[in-house]
C-alpha cells in the first residue's frame, strides 16, 4: 500500500515537472525585442504626446483651458 502511494506521489511530481518544463519551453520562444528598441518606443511616446503636467516641454496651460485654474474670486456660490 505504501509503495503504491509513494509511486502515485512521484508520478504526480513528475507530471508537474513536465508541465513546468513545457511552460519554460513556451517562455523561451516568446518574441523579444532589444532593450534599446523598447526604450526608443517609450521615449518616442513621451516626446510625441502632449502632457499638461510637463510645461517645460509643452508650454503652460491657458487659464481658459484649465478647469482647475484658481478662479478670479467672483464669489463662493454657484447656482445648481
Amino acid at each position, binding site marked *: 500500500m505504501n509503495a503504491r502511494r509513494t509511486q502515485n506521489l512521484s508520478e504526480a511530481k*513528475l507530471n508537474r515537472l513536465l508541465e513546468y518544463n513545457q511552460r519554460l519551453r513556451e*517562455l523561451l520562444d516568446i518574441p523579444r525585442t532589444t532593450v534599446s528598441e*523598447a526604450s526608443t518606443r517609450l521615449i518616442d511616446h513621451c516626446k510625441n*504626446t502632449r502632457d499638461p*503636467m510637463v510645461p517645460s516641454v509643452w508650454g503652460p496651460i491657458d487659464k481658459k483651458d484649465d478647469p*482647475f485654474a484658481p478662479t478670479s474670486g467672483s464669489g463662493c456660490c454657484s447656482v445648481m
Partner: protein
Amino acid sequence: MDDNQLPEKIAAARRDAEGLKDRIKQRKEALADATLQEMARDVEPLPRIVMKARRTLKGHLAKIYSMHWSTDKRHVVSASQDGKLIVWDAYSSNKVHAIPLRSSWVMTCAYSPSGNLVACGGLDNICSIYSLRSREGPARPARELSAHTGYLSCCRFINDRQILTSSGDKSCMLWDLDAGVKIEEFSDHANDVMSISLGPNPNVFVSGACDSTAKVWDIRSKRCVQTFVGHESDVNAVQFFPNGDAFATGSDDASCRLFDLRADCELASFSHESILCGITSIDFSVSGRLLFGGYDDYNCNVWDTLKGERVGILQAHENRVSCLGVAGDGMALCTGSWDATLRVWA
C-alpha cells in the same frame, strides 16, 4: 509506469528545467544592449515639477482606500471605510452621489468607462455593482458578484458588461455583469493579488501580488503569458504605461519599477536611499513622462520615467496616501488618503 524509472525521470526533468532557465536567461542577456537611462541621455532633464492642491474633497469620515477617475475627466469615485462610496465633481468639489455600502470594509472602487456604473468590494469578498443612471439610482447594488474566497483587492471595468477583479484568494476573475456570474478565473500567483491594470489592448491585463511578482495575462487564452520578478516584497500597485508596451509597479520594498512587455525585462527602478517606506499606488501622467507614487510616509513622489530621477514631492496629506490617479486628459492628479480627504493637484 515502471516505478523504478521514476526517480531518474524526475531527476532528468529537473535538469531540463535548469537548462531551459539558463537558455532563457541567456536570450534576455543578449538583448540587454543598453539601459533606458542611457537611451534617454539626450532627453532634456525636467525642472522641478511644482503642482498645487487645487481642490480638497472633504466628506468621508474614515480612511479612504481607493479612488478612480471617470473617463469624463471630471468625476471621481472614492471608497472609504466609513462605509460609503462618494462620487465627486472634481471641478466644483460637490458630491454627486453618496452610496451607503452593505459592508464598510471596502478596499477598492472603480468607475465604468461609460460612466453608468461604479463597483466596489473588500473584506466581504464580493464585488458590488451600482448603477448611477438607472431610475432607481444607486441605493441598492445592481449586482453582487460572489465567487472569490478572499478579499477583493482591486476591480476594473472592461465595459458595462464585463469586469475584472483581483483577490486575496490569489486569483483574478472575469465576470459577466448581465448574468452576474464568473466567466473566467486566472490563477497563477503564489500569494494575494493586490492590483490589476487594463491597458489599451483590451485582451491583456497585468496583475501585482504579494509573491513579489507582476504577471501579464491574455484574456482570450486565459493564461499567464509573462512573469516579471525583481521586487523584494509585496507588489501593491501596477499600472500600464500609456502605450501599453510597458507597465510600472509599486512595492513594499520602497521602489517602483518599470517593466517592458516586449523586452521581457525590467527597464528602470525608482528609489532613493532616503525613501524607506512602501508604495501604495502609482499612475503615469498622460504622456508617461511622469510617474506618480503614493507612499506610506504621507507623500506623493513624482519621478521622471525616462531618467529615473525624482522631480517633485507633493505634500499635503496628514496620513498615508492610499490611492491616486491621473485624469484621462492629463490635467490633474487626484490623491486619496487615510486622513479621509482627497486632493486634486494641477
